[in-house]
């Protein structure tokens, strides 16, 4: 194909793509403007059965009880992300050494416990108010990242077994809870009546560790190891 034909082709396809996007926009606008005027969705049942769910924050009730099965598969997506990224390449795990950088060290001494505490708080508060394993996991991810960036990566690299265990903990505990609940109540992820709060907290505690580590490790973009090895 000649350069000019290529350009002509490019312009034609640009116009086509623009028309496609505009058509999509028109269709979507039409669709949302035709939605029924009043809408309660599933608010009624979701709030009505909140007392059976083990938590009082309705979003947490959906995530870890009514639709906990979605969340289990979501943790599978997280596992896949890290398994995929680690399969694709070695990461740029810093071999950092903080000797001689006292300021960074003292900053970390404050930041790490603070972030971890916030994560724990978010996990706990998630049962009654906005917050929960994912938001807490993000905090923990930030903490993990700071720790790794500050040279703990060397340590993590030596203990990849522990790191891997931490990464899969959430899925394993969640899947175990799904199976355990099936054994106790006859239905997958149906928690024993009255104990839902404990089960949810247990699942979330395991999940938050895996979420935090996964997010931190995603940032490093590859499996641990020396890049030039």
């Amino acid at each position: 194909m000649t350069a000019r034909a290529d350009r002509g082709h490019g312009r034609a396809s640009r116009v086509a793509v623009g028309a496609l996007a505009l058509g999509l926009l028109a269709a979507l606008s039409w669709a949302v403007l035709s939605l029924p005027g009043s809408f309660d969705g599933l608010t009624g049942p979701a709030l009505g059965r909140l007392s059976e769910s083990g938590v009082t924050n309705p979003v947490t009730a959906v995530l870890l009880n009514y639709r906990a099965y979605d969340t289990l598969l979501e943790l599978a997506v997280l596992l896949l992300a890290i398994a995929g990224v680690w399969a694709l390449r070695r990461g740029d795990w810093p071999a950092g050494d903080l000797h001689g950088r006292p300021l960074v060290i003292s900053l970390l001494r404050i930041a790490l416990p603070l972030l971890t505490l916030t994560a724990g708080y978010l996990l706990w508060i998630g049962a009654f108010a906005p917050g929960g394993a994912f938001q807490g996991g993000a905090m923990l991810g930030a903490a993990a990242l700071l720790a790794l960036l500050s040279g703990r990566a060397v340590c993590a690299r030596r203990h990849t077994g522990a790191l891997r265990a931490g990464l899969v903990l959430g899925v394993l505990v969640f899947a175990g809870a799904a199976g355990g609940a099936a054994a106790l109540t006859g239905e997958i992820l149906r928690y024993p009546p009255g104990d839902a709060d404990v089960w949810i907290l247990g699942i979330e505690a395991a999940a938050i560790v895996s979420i935090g580590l996964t997010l931190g490790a995603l940032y490093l973009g590859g499996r641990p190891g020396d890049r030039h090895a």
Partner: protein
Amino acid sequence: MPEASPTLYLLAGALLFAIGFHSLLVQPHVLRRVMALNVMGVGVFLLFAALAARTRGETPDPVPHAMVLTGIVVSVCATGLALALAHRLEAAEEEEREDESAGDGRQARAEHEETDR
């Protein structure tokens, strides 16, 4: 401040989705495309949350909120994977160029055969 008007957010969601979709198709750079996917995602999430805000009661519908939280995590995972793949692809292209410029045709040929597996 009075309540937000969900219809505005629904329309903005549609607009963001269309903008992202357009850029995904026309932008060549991988980072732009990844951002375009994320913008499409934000559009969808706005739509979900605006739906949730249309309820008549005090509390918005928690089900779309939970779905958006799931969606956000999935988006981040996809982004992480896409960027890792992009790096791997760049490294592979770099290796290929190095092999070619090394002038060692033998190695380049061997490399080429591997690719067809």
